[in-house]
């Protein structure tokens, strides 16, 4: 009984975002992923479970190991990757607007 979790909520957590970035370049086992964090292994497992439930991560069995990979099909939802980029420009442009509203041409 899988609880379909909200993708936004899933990537709101910095560790989970870090996990997504890690597996974006190559599929990794839970152990390999966990070795990148100081967090306890069960905590990482919990994050992996959440990411898998909202289908941002996929699993593939290879021999005895399970590899996690970024779910390409759901890359669209991961368009949320863009959000910090958008926010950066939004902040910049807000500042531009503010600066220019105060601007008095020297004549």
């Amino acid at each position: 009984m899988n609880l379909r979790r909200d993708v936004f909520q899933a990537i709101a957590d910095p560790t989970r975002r870090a996990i997504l970035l890690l597996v974006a370049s190559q599929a990794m086992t839970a152990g390999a992923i966990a070795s990148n964090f100081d967090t306890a292994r069960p905590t990482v497992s919990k994050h992996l479970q959440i990411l898998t439930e909202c289908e941002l991560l996929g699993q593939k069995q290879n021999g005895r190991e399970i590899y996690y990979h970024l779910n390409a099909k759901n890359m669209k939802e991961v368009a949320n990757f863009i959000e910090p980029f958008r926010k950066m420009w939004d902040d910049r442009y807000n500042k531009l607007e503010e600066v220019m509203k105060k601007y008095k041409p020297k004549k």
Partner: protein
Amino acid sequence: MEQKTKVTAEDGKQDLMITREFDLPVELLFKAHTDPELIEQWMSNPYATSKLLKFEGKKHGSYQQQSTDANGKVVFSASGVFHDIIPNKKIIRTFEMENAPLGVQLEILNFEKLDDHKSKLTTHTIYESGVLRDQQLKMPFAQGLSMAHDRMQEIVSKLK
């Protein structure tokens, strides 16, 4: 709430589009992109001060910008050339960030008058490849991430 600044990046493409409407006459919006003092003002933020080391805001001119943090450390530097500048209409330029493996970008800025007090800016950025574009898109994401890590590190070291 509708977002003021929109970023469109189609899957598998090597370009992206940033659009934004401003409560500013198009002349002021354009000026904000061609007056070095103004650029330095709006490109600066509480964490970094932006400086234009060179700025020839004309067709075939070039520019060089740099941002430094509170300790004077250079955190960002970029340069490029203006292919064309058409007042209140268009700026076409190249852009390259130093020390970042993102290649060169071609940027086409379109300025549009909506009414006497409103204007719209559309920036079309074209990368050398789709992979590089995606990398750029993820950068603020990754930076936010490393900042979060630094903060975490800080907190953890205090607990030690």
